[in-house]
């Protein structure tokens, strides 16, 4: 039985109907709706930046004319309703008709080769741009044909002053446009595919390559679809821009950022397309500060699919999207669908079984020892027990082990907040008031759970929300983690058992899966990323297990003073590369300008799989103050 969670299904579903059935509209509202409403999505270059697996390519496919057409033809389907609403909010659908015709061009491999030609940069750039334009025209026409429109019924609305240029691109009708675009594509392909590049004179003679500028001519597409005559905004999506040479990408960006272009144009790129400095210092991307005639804010709409801003909102939005996506994937599996089990959250129990009595007894003894060590009076313990009891009574986890673990933390905190006594003083136990009142709350409870996880392997990673939070806002990571849980649930169903997974089973499966995923890393510099992440994790674990849980749930990041961090690309280029790949492959998340203690920090936060593997909290914010040198040392230490 195929488990669609094992692989990201959208990439492999070639039929639009099957694709649309599993696509969730949440990212549309999260990332695209606002710029679309503000009119910044289609009238200028949009840069969409995210980690691999964050859903960029899936989004691009939604804006194809053929996809929109199928969606609208089946508008009666309940599952499509939200998607139609989302695309309407993004202005890809207007008045119940497609308003854009999108095409996706992957910039993988082939285009980068132009930069290896022994020609001047301008010629290399113009060859790249000419081939991309030919491919864009061909892709638009192909997409319209896929939607059942004959080439003869496709025309372009050309710019009024572009008669000569119109002739150069093959005229206004689809037939001529396709013929000319194919000619150009073949001519440029033959240059790029040659084992040894032809002489520059030979290339320059073919001046047509540089004169071919369809994107300068096309204002819109006019399409006769059945009885409807639609005017569509052409949208070209350049995907995987990180494969281009940095100068080539810059040339492409500069070309696309020109205001005269009427065609909507997006560049989708992974984080590591940009120079390490751009990845590490969010916002300083896309153009050099001194690029003549270009103002970043005015010319470019930048959409970060993982951003340091509004993280709480992003987490909420991701949870919603992930749950929706999981439901759609689950409904693809006959075993679940047949039984109407379409909500992953329902299969993941949030009830935690209490520890065995022997373990509780061991914990009680430890708490008693703590009390004795700090000479804490029975009255004080009673007060703290009452505080813990009052808090736990409000929640679902009112168990003896939680009580004891919380009490242990509060006892340690009490000891820290009362004056120290002399080593040899033999005073009677005196109950002093702590310098700051001690309270039990959700944050301390998280620390208690982490302590129980490390002391007794009590489940910590369970429930749908934990699963979502462990995914670091990355759809692919979510699916990879969820795959194992779904497979186990499926097995239980097939064996006629309840499909619900106990918290312990979830916890164990997720930890195994995370460990497997990390062992499977094989991206560039993965061994250094592994070394650095493990070093950070080890120190975070030590801090998290301190008796008084000073950071509540504990630490899951290193904080580097922002001004020091900004210097990394210049002073520590090797470390910058490690961080760059770590970020690009979801090992780290960088949170710049995090303000704490009147100082700005850049947090190097561990991703969800690393947190699971090392038993660290999924709650954010706890970090260890460190220097850049500490990061360098960790990358150099033998594993």
């Amino acid at each position, binding site marked *: 039985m195929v488990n669609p969670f094992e*692989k990201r299904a959208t990439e492999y579903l070639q039929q639009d109907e099957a694709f649309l059935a599993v696509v969730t509209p949440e990212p549309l509202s999260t990332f695209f709706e606002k710029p679309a409403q503000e009119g910044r999505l289609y009238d200028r270059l949009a840069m969409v930046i995210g980690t691999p697996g964050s859903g960029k390519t899936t989004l691009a496919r939604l804006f194809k004319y053929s996809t929109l057409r199928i969606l609208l033809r089946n508008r009666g389907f309940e599952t499509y309703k939200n998607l139609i609403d989302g695309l309407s909010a993004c202005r890809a659908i207007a008045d119940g008709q497609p308003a854009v015709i999108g095409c996706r061009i992957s910039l993988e491999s082939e285009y980068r080769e132009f930069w290896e030609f022994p020609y001047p940069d301008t010629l290399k750039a113009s060859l790249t741009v000419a081939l991309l334009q030919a491919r864009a025209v061909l892709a638009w026409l*192909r997409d319209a044909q896929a939607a059942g429109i004959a080439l003869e019924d496709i025309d372009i609305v050309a710019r009024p002053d572009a008669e000569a240029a119109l002739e150069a691109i093959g005229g206004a009708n689809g037939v001529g446009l396709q013929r000319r675009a194919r000619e150009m594509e073949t001519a440029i392909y033959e240059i790029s595919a040659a084992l040894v590049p032809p002489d520059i004179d030979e290339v320059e003679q073919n001046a047509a390559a540089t004169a071919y500028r369809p994107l300068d001519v096309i204002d819109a597409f006019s399409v006769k679809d059945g009885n409807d005559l639609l005017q569509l905004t052409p949208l070209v999506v350049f995907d995987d821009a990180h494969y281009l040479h940095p100068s080539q990408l810059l040339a492409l960006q500069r070309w696309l950022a020109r205001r005269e272009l009427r065609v909507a144009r997006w560049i989708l790129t992974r984080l590591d397309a940009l120079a390490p400095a751009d990845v590490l210092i969010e916002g300083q991307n896309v153009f050099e500060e001194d690029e003549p005639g270009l103002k970043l804010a005015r010319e470019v709409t930048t959409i970060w699919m993982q951003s340091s801003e509004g993280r709480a909102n992003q987490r909420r939005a991701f949870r919603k999207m992930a749950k929706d996506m999981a439901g759609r994937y689950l409904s693809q599996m006959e075993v679940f669908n047949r039984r109407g089990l379409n909500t992953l959250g329902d299969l993941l129990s949030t009830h935690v079984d209490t520890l065995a009595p022997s373990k509780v007894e061991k914990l009680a003894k430890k708490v008693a020892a703590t009390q004795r060590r700090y000479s804490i009076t029975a009255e004080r313990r009673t007060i703290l027990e009452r505080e813990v009891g009052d808090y736990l009574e409000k929640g679902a986890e009112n168990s003896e082990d939680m009580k004891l673990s919380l009490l242990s933390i509060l006892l340690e905190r009490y000891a820290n907040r009362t004056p120290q006594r002399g080593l040899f003083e033999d005073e009677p136990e005196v109950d002093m008031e702590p310098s700051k009142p001690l309270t039990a709350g959700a944050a301390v409870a998280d620390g208690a759970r982490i302590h129980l996880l490390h002391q007794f392997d009590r489940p910590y990673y369970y429930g749908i929300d934990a699963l979502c939070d462990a995914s670091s806002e990355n759809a692919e990571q979510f699916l990879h983690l969820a795959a194992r849980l779904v497979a186990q649930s499926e097995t239980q169903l097939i064996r006629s058992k309840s499909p619900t997974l106990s918290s312990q089973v979830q916890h164990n499966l997720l930890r195994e899966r995370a460990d497997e995923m990390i062992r499977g890393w094989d991206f560039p510099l993965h061994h250094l990323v592994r070394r650095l992440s493990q070093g950070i994790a080890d120190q975070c674990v030590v801090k998290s297990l301190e008796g008084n849980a000073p950071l509540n749930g504990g630490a899951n990041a290193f904080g580097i003073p922002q001004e020091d961090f900004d210097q990394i690309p210049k002073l520590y280029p090797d470390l910058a590369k490690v961080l760059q790949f770590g970020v690009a492959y979801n090992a780290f998340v960088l949170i710049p300008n995090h303000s704490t203690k009147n100082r700005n920090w850049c947090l190097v936060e561990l991703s969800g799989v690393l947190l699971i593997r090392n038993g660290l909290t999924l709650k954010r914010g706890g970090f260890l103050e460190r220097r850049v040198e500490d990061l360098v040392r960790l990358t150099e230490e033998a594993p």
Partner: protein
Amino acid sequence: MARDWRWDPCVSHDGIEAERFVAEYFPEAHRKTLLIAGAGFDPRATQVVDRLATGGADLKALFVRESRPNPDGELTRRAEANIERLKSAIPNHEIVPIEIFGADGAVVGGRNVAAAASRQDMASVTDVVVDISALSVGTAFPLIRYFVELIDRGRGPKNLHLFVAHDPSLDSQISSIAGDAPGYVHGFKGGLTLDAAANAAKLWLPQLAKGRRQALSRVHDFVVPHDTCPILPFPARDPRLGDMLAEEYMVEFESAWKVDARDVVYADEQDPLHLYRTILRLDDLRKPVFRDAGGSILILSPLGTKVMSLGALMAALERDLPVAYLESIGYDFKASAERSLPAPHLIHVWLEGDVYPQPRPRLKKGLNQ
């Protein structure tokens, strides 16, 4: 049935026959041979060179030194030792450093090696020998294609020989660290990226190898084939190898690649011609089926042993098939403690030359073959 295949029949030798061929053929008085071989850490780098040099042939050598970023110190030391041996074996030599990756991490090795080959003076050369034992796919394939095309246009030497020192146990000791940019080997795009190929039914034929799951998954995501027929080595020196590989790739078989048991292609681990013929047969079977529906195209990914990659290369050359792969950014070599392993098995394929009758079946180009 008579087939119109360029290398069927093909002149090839293996084992003792190949060694005898080397000893008898290359020392012939009128032969002037250009030997191209890898000058890397691979212990097989010197095997063919040693055998050619000891026979007293008139040799000129071009040693290709593939450079990858941050090489392992031990591997560099091994490469240096190999280079010393190569230099002393053939005094008339040139060492060409080839950068496999550009400054931005892009794969540029194929272009660089093709440019290096094009600079060679071939005027008096009668035979070119390419020893792929210590060359990577991204380097060896463009190099060989360059000479095949040169000969095809009548501008090259008469004979082109390929050699490989086959040693599966050594292959298993060398693990490759995959880069993150899948692509087509330089010169092996096969027109796949053209609009004309947009509707072609794509069949991907990956050679499975141990420890290459993620690499092959990335190539799969890059190729996005309609169907996948993985190639397993059978017969193989280790008869269970095919089973072990199938087990390793079980998740891919079931989920992403959707491989049926009947889709698996078996190829003799030690005979490059077996895989060559299998691929061509598959191509011949599919072509008429998909002719009116956009055409058919086979995409190869030779990530397995070198001998099998030789078979894939021959098929790719003849039919202009695209070769998708993921370049290695480095290698890890855990040399086995026991050196009593059997000596590498030499395999020779006479790819072009006066041994073949003329006219020969042509090299096809593009999709419209």
